[in-house]
């Protein structure tokens, strides 16, 4: 019995399922529920142990429909890695119960849906704008909002906090000292803003203001053809750009129903693991800087430069590589590239050992991080943590193991898991993951499959330049694909990969045209960072800084 029929049979005695819609398409299970039942359905799915994670909540706008909005919930079960998409159609002006009492992690996702579409969530205590600035009028992801209609912002908001039922967020307590950090503050990595009330050095309340790097990725995706979206994905988590390329292309390929050749898969794995290493380098290096240790940063950056050199050899770009195409890679690796990678991995292993001694064995570092602001496993799940932070809290979930793709199932590697969920464990996990990534790269590099680096479907992949200029058929195929565009079938998919920060998901809706109809990114650090005010409560300011650093919040994917 498939999971969906099982769910159906269990829902049947409790709800009038005749009004529900169950369907499976492109390998995803979908359940459409009327608004009146949604809260109970979600509650049942959670309490019966069917799904423990609320991965994402988002909206979609269909102006022609009678009920023009969809609220889409993505649920995930960490035991068997099954997923369910629950959708609720809403009419203009209708509201929907907030999922916040079930999952704390719904908080910011619902605020985002409100900001982008104007969907109201009943019972949400802080249903305010989150990404756009406070003077912004309208809801930009509605289809009638033009992509380039800018609205200027003339002031920043003063210090404010979230409402918590008892106190209003904009009323400050005179007993405490208000403090504002960022967005231009060295510990805030350029774009984060944290406001806090302090009792001495202790944080009494804190709040995050985000959106200072809201670059409208999702709207840009709707106004560009599928392949032109790839460079935008680079700039989500720019510390590990290739991983975003891979995540996005994998989603589109799932919708197209194509499997990429073995060589492309191997190249993607290598790129992903190299990116994981350099992403963790930034996390660990700047984490050290935020604690006052500059050496780790300079030392680790040497290795990052080496990876940049590898990327440069591969495609000419250092940071924003855009190396994948839908259907495979943009080009083959140059001769000897895999050997260069092997040489690098060898050096890197030594570097990791050094850095782990320098940081993890350092008395000051241990004192600053061990036992500081820990997050328990149950809380981590409720917040929607994924990736190294979830594993630091003791949950051994990694999509590369639980739902392997691109041949990860055949590779030998371990998933490091922490015990306390404190800052120290997070770095411990990250540094160990770098070692495991080295192992993976070595295994793949030793036996890179031959063959083509991309599929050759003329409706998906552009012909090679030599064919475009060399023969009429190549020229025609090129012309047709450029004019007509790559057009996936009508439908929608969700696909996720294990990125450096956790589950990077793409929810793609296609109406059969050459641009995505809707592309929702599920960024890992968005879910993580919303827990910040709760996690640092009662800790000192310096611990709060260390916490931000250990969360490795990357503004590009946080604000999109």
């Amino acid at each position, binding site marked *: 019995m498939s999971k969906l029929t099982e769910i159906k049979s269990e829902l049947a005695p409790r709800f009038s399922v005749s009004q529900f819609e169950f369907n499976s398409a492109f390998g995803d299970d979908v359940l459409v529920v009327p608004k009146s039942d949604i809260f109970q359905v979600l509650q049942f799915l959670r309490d019966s142990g069917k799904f423990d994670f609320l991965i994402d909540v988002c909206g979609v706008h269909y102006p022609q429909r009678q009920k023009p909005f969809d609220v889409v919930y993505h649920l995930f079960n960490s035991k068997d890695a099954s997923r369910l998409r629950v959708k609720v159609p809403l009419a203009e002006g209708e509201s929907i119960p907030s999922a916040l009492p079930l999952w704390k992690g719904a908080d910011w996702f619902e605020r985002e849906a409100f900001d982008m579409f104007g969907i109201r969530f009943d019972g949400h205590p802080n249903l305010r704008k989150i990404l756009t*600035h406070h003077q*912004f009028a309208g809801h930009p992801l509605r289809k009638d909002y033009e992509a*380039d209609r800018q609205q200027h912002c003339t002031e920043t908001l003063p210090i404010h906090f979230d409402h918590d039922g008892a106190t209003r967020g904009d009323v400050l307590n005179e007993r405490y000292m208000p403090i504002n950090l960022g967005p231009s503050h*060295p510990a805030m990595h350029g774009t984060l803003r944290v406001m806090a009330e302090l009792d001495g050095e202790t944080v009494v309340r804190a709040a995050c203001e985000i959106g200072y790097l809201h670059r409208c990725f999702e*709207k840009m995706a709707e106004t560009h053809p599928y392949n032109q979206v790839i460079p935008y994905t680079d700039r989500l988590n720019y510390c590990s750009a290739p991983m975003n390329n891979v995540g996005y292309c994998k989603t589109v390929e799932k919708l197209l129903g194509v499997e990429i050749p073995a060589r492309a898969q191997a190249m993607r794995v290598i790129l992903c693991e190299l990116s994981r290493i350099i992403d963790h380098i*930034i996390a660990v290096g700047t984490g050290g800087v935020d604690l006052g240790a500059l050496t780790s940063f300079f030392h680790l950056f040497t290795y990052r430069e080496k990876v940049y050199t590898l990327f440069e050899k591969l495609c000419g770009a250092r940071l924003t590589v855009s190396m994948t195409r839908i259907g495979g890679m943009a080009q083959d690796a140059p001769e000897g590239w895999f050997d260069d990678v092997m040489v690098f991995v060898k050096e890197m292993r030594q570097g990791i050992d050094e850095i782990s001694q320098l940081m993890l064995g350092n008395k000051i570092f241990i004192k600053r991080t061990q036992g500081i602001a820990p997050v328990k496993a149950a809380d981590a799940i409720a917040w929607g943590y994924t990736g190294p932070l979830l594993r630091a809290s003791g949950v051994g979930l990694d999509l590369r193991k639980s739902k392997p793709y691109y041949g990860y199932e055949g590779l030998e590697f371990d998933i490091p898991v922490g015990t306390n969920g404190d800052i120290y464990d997070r770095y411990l996990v990250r540094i160990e993951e770098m070692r495991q990534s080295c192992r993976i790269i070595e295994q793949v590099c030793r036996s890179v499959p031959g063959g083509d680096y991309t599929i050759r479907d003329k409706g998906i992949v552009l012909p090679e330049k030599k064919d475009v200029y060399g023969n009429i058929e190549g020229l025609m195929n090129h012309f047709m694909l450029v004019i007509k565009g790559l057009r996936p079938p009508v439908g929608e998919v969700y696909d996720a990969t294990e990125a450096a920060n956790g589950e990077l998901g793409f929810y793609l809706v296609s109406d059969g045209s050459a641009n995505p109809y809707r592309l929702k990114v599920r960024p890992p650090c968005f879910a993580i960072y919303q827990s910040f005010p709760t996690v640092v409560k009662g800790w000192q300011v310096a611990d709060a800084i260390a916490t931000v650093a250990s969360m490795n919040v990357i503004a590009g994917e946080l604000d999109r």
Partner: protein
Amino acid sequence: MITGTQRHDDMSRSFALTTRLDAIIAWGQKNALWPMPYGTACCGIELMSVMGPKYDLARFGAEVVRFSPRQSDLLLVAGTITEKMAPVLVRIYRQMLEPKFVISMGACASSGGFYRAYHVLQGCDKVIPVDVYVPGCPPTPEAVLDGVMLLQRMIQKRTPRPWKDNWKAPDYE
């Protein structure tokens, strides 16, 4: 034997040089730029490389990175400036003391880049005066170094900067 004025001249040459005051000030300014990195996005990561071990901006006399606008004289805008960020950027710029210079690193900071979008400022020069634009998405570290050197030449030659002289703060400030 040399006597008189000539002798005094020779003697003073052995321990002094003559120059114009503004020239020597420019020389000092150019070789002691204190940058404030305003890294907001991907370009900020590449800026780390510029500061990092391989490219090492310190070699060009711009070593002392300051995160306080009061202590710096070169604002390095590296990354997309959104509408929400614009008032913050203006405030930071105004907090810097004279003389001050601005380098806009990358397509986004210079023009909004490929984000022709509802929440992105179409270039930081919409709100603050920019001296040097460095193209690229992100620019290579070499390009940034070149931008810094260009600025140094401008400082040395006392290149007129009408964009700076005629700058008016956006009316909300």
